[in-house]
């Protein structure tokens, strides 16, 4: 789960990081009053609290030279949509005049089974681009998870960024705070892009925290971001998640259902390999019940991008008869009919196939033959 910028900043500040003075204003608050009372010194930055990439370019970050102007901007921003997401809150902060913008992040190090610090003096821009164009400009340092991030490691990174003296000490404290936050909140990512330097202080201009979804149960203190506001999911993905389906929307027109993430991806790839374009990824997982299968099939019948549906099941724990029953049940209840091609092998294959064929659906054993049929249907 991504936290909003203001949440990330509050958490990091509580561990000792410095952020610009600011105030969060909600849709349902009196913007005028809140901003008058806050006593901020212009110039100010008004930042839409939406979790979409490229918020700045989409008009979600604006400068105000007076409190009045900030009020005006905030009022306009609240309730508007940035890349389709409604702005429920804005963060109004004192603008920090600065020259250099730096990048720093701590994330999971899959290879070393620990954490990794990434830092760069080329912050403020798309860091993935920096990483690809100027790999030398990114400092990477793996952190042993048993030991934790220690001061000397943070100092070494700070020195590489060119910091010295008190500033180096403050950078060290920042990194240690970021690591603490990572561990305390089960974060996948704690990032500031950019942060800047003012005198001896390190100031986080932006901040981002992503919490491991699997760990959310351990963090009742974190307010759940409503799924529609996360900016991570399309409308149909939101619907799917609300129904408990593992679904990703794609750009093609062949609806894809598979059992298991790997097989479902492979099925998408197979469609593409034979010249088609998958409309989605929908994984019914291992041991799916007919109920779940029915739900998934109905979902794709409703999903407008999917013009045809290809169901690819390799029954291991998943029973083919359950799958077949689910498909038939979905079709019975469906408002719309779409061509459905099923490839079904494995446990209870015969029963499954006979259920389908009784209902006029051919069940293929060979996936390639099945794909070709999908594409020619």
């Amino acid at each position: 789960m991504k936290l909003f910028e203001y949440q990330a900043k509050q958490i990091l500040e509580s561990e000792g990081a410095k952020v610009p003075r600011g105030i969060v204003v909600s849709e349902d608050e009196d913007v005028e009053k809140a901003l008058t009372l806050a006593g901020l010194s212009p110039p100010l930055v008004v930042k839409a609290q939406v979790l979409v990439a490229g918020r700045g370019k989409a008009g979600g970050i604006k400068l105000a030279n007076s409190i009045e102007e900030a009020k005006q901007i905030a009022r306009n921003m609240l309730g508007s949509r940035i890349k389709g997401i409604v702005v429920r809150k804005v963060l109004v902060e004192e603008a920090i005049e600065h020259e250099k913008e730096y990048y720093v992040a701590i994330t999971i190090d899959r290879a070393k089974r620990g954490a990794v610090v990434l830092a760069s003096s080329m912050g403020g821009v798309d860091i993935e681009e920096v990483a690809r164009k100027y790999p030398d400009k990114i400092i990477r340092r793996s952190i042993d998870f048993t030991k934790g991030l220690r001061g000397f490691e943070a100092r070494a990174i700070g020195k590489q960024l060119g910091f010295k003296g008190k500033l180096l000490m403050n950078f060290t404290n920042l990194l240690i705070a970021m690591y603490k936050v990572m561990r305390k909140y089960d974060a996948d990512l704690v990032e500031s892009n950019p942060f800047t330097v003012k005198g001896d202080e390190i100031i986080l201009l932006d901040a981002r925290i992503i919490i491991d979804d699997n760990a959310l149960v351990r963090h009742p203190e974190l307010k759940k971001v409503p799924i529609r506001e996360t900016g991570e999911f399309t409308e149909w993905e939101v619907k799917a998640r609300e129904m408990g389906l593992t679904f990703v929307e794609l750009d093609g027109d062949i609806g894809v259902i598979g059992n298991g993430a790997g097989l479902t991806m492979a099925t998408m790839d197979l469609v593409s390999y034979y010249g088609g374009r998958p409309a989605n990824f929908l994984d019914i997982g291992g041991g799916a019940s007919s109920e779940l299968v029915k739900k998934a099939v109905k979902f794709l019948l409703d999903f407008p991008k999917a013009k045809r549906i290809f169901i690819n099941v390799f029954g291991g724990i998943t029973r083919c008869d359950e799958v077949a029953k689910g498909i038939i049940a979905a079709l019975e209840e469906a408002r719309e009919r779409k061509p459905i091609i099923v490839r079904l092998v494995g446990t209870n294959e015969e029963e499954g196939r006979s259920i389908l064929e009784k209902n006029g659906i051919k069940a293929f054993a060979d996936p390639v033959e099945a794909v070709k049929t999908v594409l020619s249907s």
Partner: protein
Amino acid sequence: MAILVDENTRVIVQGITGREGSFHTKLMLEYGTKIVAGVTPGKGGANVHGVPVYDTVEEALKSHPDANTSIIFVPARFATDAVYEAIDNGMKVVVVITEHIPVHEALEFVNYARSKNTWIVGPNCPGVISPGKTKVGIMPGHVFREGNIGIVSRSGTLTYEIAFTLTREGYGQSTAIGIGGDPITGMDFIDVLEMYRNDDETKAVVIIGEIGGDAEERAAKYILDTKYPKPVIAYIAGKTAPPGKRMGHAGAIISMGSGYYEDKVKAFTSVGVKVADTPFRVVEYIKELIKD
């Protein structure tokens, strides 16, 4: 020989009284796996498909000191505890089927396990099978057959699919391991490749990768660095997956500039590992290699 699990494997099933645990205990027993005990706290004294149940692994070991492997079906909230229990009681291999374990917990127990010389398979994995010898996992046993191909995979069903094509064409498997779909797993491709390298029975290795992370790239580097002495064929799922989206597995996501399909294919082909276009062509490459 096979790797990790074989005819000497004696299994404890942790979480045996749950729906999944009980169901797969039955299937493993049917396959011939030697399950000596089950564990569910508070259910000591019960019996699941003839397997005696104990409250703790320690108690299970008192009556079954030959147990050396554990398979965990415990729900995510309690799974980490079960993993530590298995490690501290000296299990040499711990197969963690459970999905949705927080990644920080996995990081902790995976590091701990390594310090205690325990192999963790998973989490979020289908387990390990050494066909004809034993199955410590949830894979359908009938798609595998004893033979000389080693399989290592980040995916479950895709493994069954590919194993099945191999089996049908007469290429049995020494062992097939699903290392799990999470970002942090107890074993990676390199760990398993190293084991296959030392396993006389294994003549070739199939790597089934997917987008996300850089396990495939590291495996490629390892193959180059060690002048890997056995032929390796790869398949990578997710060519059509968009960046920034989790594709079912927590680990299957292109992010922070890494995890792209193209990078993985390039890494493998540059070290002489052939990458199959579709899962069904893996067997064709194997045929060519084994012919040589």
